């Protein structure tokens, strides 16, 4: 048979049309978040995310046959199950259906893959461990030595931990991540969460749906946990619009047992307070905000009178309003609200966060490094040891560099390195300070 090129092209076009163009807009958005997460994490090592979903035995058979064994002085050795392979980086393993599969690390940490869970250790160094969770549930007990930064990727989500104990369940087909923290703190970033992510403390249960971009946060119990107590003072929950103050204002939110967090699908904000509906019976801006309808929320707020809202709203509501504007991409409005928030509630811890956010808007969206630098400096002046101090210092350095202020950039880089020698901007700081290669 010989087919004319033109016919084959027509056939191919028809076939391409039938096959479709790929992922849905929601899935593309998830991919975007995953990519942004990769970029911001500076993940340049070859982190293969493909999940062959091998059985543990098969994976190890392949691993033992073809593994790239090497020993670096800073490597963190680990073994999978009872097989004492020295290193098995980048090999996907899957726990059998009948029993869990433990992965033991030399520092005493242990990650247990529950039945049918597939995961791999991308890289394991004493200062940094990267793990990819392809599917299923892991129980992680990370040694609290504090030396190693652990990052676990699950689809568009990234979990960063130091010493902690938690369970993470990732359903890749639904793009659903459930995280339950038993001890310590876990920072979760990615789709549906703002760029800062959300820090979970002991007892917190996060349910995040990447496709629907829904996030729910519940507290099942507050365990006595020294780590969590010391960390939680610096927790920033603003990423999902659940300010600390709200939770503290309502002690029930700390104590209430909510066994079925998954069914809720929404943030437990407002604590059941009856919300006033608009005269026309339409939902208020705050109700729209709670439904993640940020654009509509801002439109409703503007119709109601944004200036008046900014003057009269409570601290919490004004923060929500800023959050809605930011999520709706209305950055001028967000800037306006955040600036007002700082003026009206200057003593609130969120006022410092507002400065940081204003810096980010100036830098990332308005490409105005000078103004961004001013806001990052403001944040650092006001919250030198705040939860975003490292990030603010790193961004300040970049803003100076981008703005052509080489001397200040170098000075800030050296300052950053002295304070955060293993921080996420450390490599860049070395480069800017002139110590890099």
């Amino acid at each position, binding site marked *: 048979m010989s087919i004319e*090129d033109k*016919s084959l092209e027509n*056939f191919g076009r028809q076939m391409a049309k039938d096959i479709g163009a790929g992922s849905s807009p929601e899935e593309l958005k998830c991919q*975007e978040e995953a990519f942004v997460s990769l970029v911001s994490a500076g993940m340049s090592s070859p982190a293969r995310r493909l999940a062959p979903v091998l059985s543990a035995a098969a994976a190890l058979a392949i691993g033992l046959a073809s593994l790239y064994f090497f020993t670096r002085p800073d490597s963190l050795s680990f073994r999978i199950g009872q097989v004492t392979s020295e290193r098995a980086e980048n090999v996907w393993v899957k726990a059998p259906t009948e029993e869990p599969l433990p992965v033991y690390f030399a520092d005493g940490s242990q990650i247990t893959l529950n039945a049918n869970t597939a995961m791999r250790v991308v890289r394991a160094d004493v200062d940094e461990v990267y793990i990819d969770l392809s599917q299923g549930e892991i129980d992680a007990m990370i040694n609290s030595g504090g030396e190693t930064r652990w990052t676990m990727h699950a689809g568009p989500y990234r979990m960063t931990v130091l010493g902690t104990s938690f369970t993470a369940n990732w359903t890749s087909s639904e793009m659903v991540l459930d995280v339950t923290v038993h001890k310590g703190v876990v920072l979760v970033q990615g789709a549906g969460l703002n760029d800062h992510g959300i820090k979970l403390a002991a007892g917190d249960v996060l349910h995040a749906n990447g496709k629907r971009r829904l996030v729910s946060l519940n507290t099942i119990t507050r365990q006595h946990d020294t780590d969590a107590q010391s960390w939680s003072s610096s927790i920033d929950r603003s990423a999902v619009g659940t300010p600390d103050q709200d939770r503290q204002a309502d002690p029930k939110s700390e104590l209430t047992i909510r066994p079925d967090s998954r069914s809720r699908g929404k943030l437990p904000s407002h604590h059941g307070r009856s919300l006033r509906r608009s005269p026309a019976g339409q939902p208020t801006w705050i109700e729209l905000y709670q439904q993640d309808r940020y654009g509509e929320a801002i439109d409703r707020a503007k119709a109601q009178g944004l200036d008046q809202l900014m003057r009269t709203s409570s601290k919490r509501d004004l923060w929500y309003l800023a959050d809605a504007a930011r999520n709706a991409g209305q950055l001028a409005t967000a800037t306006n609200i955040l600036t007002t928030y700082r003026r009206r509630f200057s003593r609130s811890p969120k006022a410092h966060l507002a400065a940081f956010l204003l810096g980010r808007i100036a830098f990332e969206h308005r490409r105005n490094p000078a103004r961004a630098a001013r806001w990052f400096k403001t944040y650092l002046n006001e919250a030198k040891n705040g939860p975003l101090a490292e990030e603010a210092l790193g961004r300040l350095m970049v803003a100076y560099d981008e703005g052509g202020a080489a001397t200040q950039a170098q000075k800030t880089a050296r300052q950053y390195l002295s304070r955060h020698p293993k921080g996420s901007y450390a490599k860049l700081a070395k480069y800017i300070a002139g110590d890099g290669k």
Partner: protein
Amino acid sequence: MNQKGVKNELADVIDLPGPALSNQELVRGLIRRETYAARQFHQRFGARIDRLVWRLLGADTEHHDLVHQVYVNILSSIRSLRKIESLSDWVNSVTFRTVRKELRNRKVRRLMVPSTDHVDAAEDNANPQKAVYIRRFYAVLAQLEVEDRMIFVLRYLEGHSLEEVAAAGQYSLSTAKRRIKRAKEEFESRVITDPILVSVLKSFSHVH
């Protein structure tokens, strides 16, 4: 800061997504781990990368993982990009090579572990006939050598020109031409065994 000051401060703030970055700015931004660059890069290339992976592999349980891997490969090799003006071709090339590696790995993997997690092309409940065509089409593609399969998809499904195929596969023009010819012949020799696909092809009327 008083209200007037705030207004002055905001006088030049407008709701725009930000200026389109040049290729050079985009690459530099990615190297510097800037999220705005990541977002613009995705807006410019994300849908294309996704579509290319989708069509090269067919609907696949590992689709999102593979797209993710393309991004990982882009980030890990972007410093080696020499021709900034050819960023678009380079992205195609990274995607092509990532999928090619995966397809080759699958062949090896199947020797050791029977594959059970791969699904055929997208099911369309509203049009099951279409789903049959697509399944059979990918079954034919699966019989081809990896390189032939990919070139066939690029040329005939994606409608890539000779030059674009050459850039994606990093071939010379003459090699690309030869490989397209071989891919076409290989496809023809196998599709002939599938009467349903032959009937579809005949509907395009130029089969001899």
